């Protein structure tokens, strides 16, 4: 835990305040205080919880909620694909690691090598648990005292953006090729033009998949030892 904690400090700042915001928002919709708390435990996915809160204030329609959350969180599919190998052989920790794999947790767990002598499975579990603890704490505070703590939290989410920027650069240096990173940025930049800024995630993911499939022959040699056989040419 001591190894994991320093890495989660930016998340601590970001999640607590964002959680408070989420709690305040739920309260402002007239929802009871336990709703944001329960959501932070059961769902644990920031942007989705804001949307679910707004739906809880409307008519009962769990199927729509299910579909909307599926779309918002579709990017987690990619996280799972990236973590397939790393979560191997972790036994009982694995289900929780998968459950708690939000953007920030995935980023840290993917990009960080635990310090020497620290068990990888426990390290990742602590990162996940600490992040969720911050989030639950924030949502609880927001839910309980939302109306009292009239704060402006703009700018706090900056700490998490900074984290992503740093991880992106780390990854850029560590990665054996840069084409996929360029594809990611290009896809995210182009996608809003197709579907509008509000739902750019799905087209962006599709573009990334197409781009990466098309450039497989350029990218794959960089990982030659981890991928041996070649069954499928992509479209390039």
């Amino acid at each position, binding site marked *: 835990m001591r190894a994991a904690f320093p890495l989660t400090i*930016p998340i601590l700042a970001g999640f607590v305040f964002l959680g408070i915001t989420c709690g305040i928002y739920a309260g402002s919709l007239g929802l009871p205080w336990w709703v944001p708390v329960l959501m932070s435990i059961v769902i644990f996915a920031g942007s989705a919880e804001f949307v679910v809160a707004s739906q*809880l204030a409307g008519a*009962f329609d*769990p199927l729509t*909620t299910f579909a909307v959350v599926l779309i918002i969180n579709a990017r987690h599919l990619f996280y799972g694909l990236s973590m*397939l190998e790393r979560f191997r052989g972790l036994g009982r920790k694995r289900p929780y690691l998968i*459950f708690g794999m939000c953007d920030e947790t995935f980023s840290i767990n993917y990009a960080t090598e635990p310090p020497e002598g620290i068990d990888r499975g426990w390290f990742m579990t602590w990162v996940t648990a600490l992040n969720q603890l911050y989030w639950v704490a924030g949502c609880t505070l927001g839910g309980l005292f939302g109306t009292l703590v009239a704060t402006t939290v703009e700018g706090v989410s900056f700490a998490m953006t900074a984290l992503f920027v740093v991880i992106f650069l780390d*990854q850029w240096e560590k990665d054996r090729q840069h084409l996929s990173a360029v594809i990611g940025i290009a896809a995210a930049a182009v996608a809003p033009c197709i579907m509008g800024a509000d739902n750019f995630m799905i087209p962006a993911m599709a573009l990334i998949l197409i781009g*990466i499939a098309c450039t497989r022959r350029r990218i794959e040699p960089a990982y030659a030892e981890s*991928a041996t056989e070649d069954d499928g040419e992509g479209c390039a």
Partner: protein
Amino acid sequence: MTTLQMLITIGAAGAATVLTRAAAFIAFPAGRETPAFVRYLGNALPGAVFGLLVVYCLKDVSILSESHGIPGGNSQGLVALTRLQSEPREGISTVHSAHGAVTQKTLVVGNENVRFAASRRCSDE
């Protein structure tokens, strides 16, 4: 909505979230050989995903219109700058993000502080 209906809705949202996170692990269980293309994706995707996340976080920032656009962009650039200048590597650079967060606050006060923060940060290293 009744309490029960709220619980069901939250449950549905939780199930959808878990599904997106677990889908890859369900589709490609540990015991069986993972297809080569999927293993390729596991290698090639992260670079693209982090690029996507950065854009995702910055997409709502509108340049010029509010106090956050330009300072935000500036301080992200500063975070990147300090990150690139710092050698040796310190794993994931928590310090830098924390520093960036502080910088953001400073920047809103006055842009002059950027130069100061930048020069101090660089000389620290």
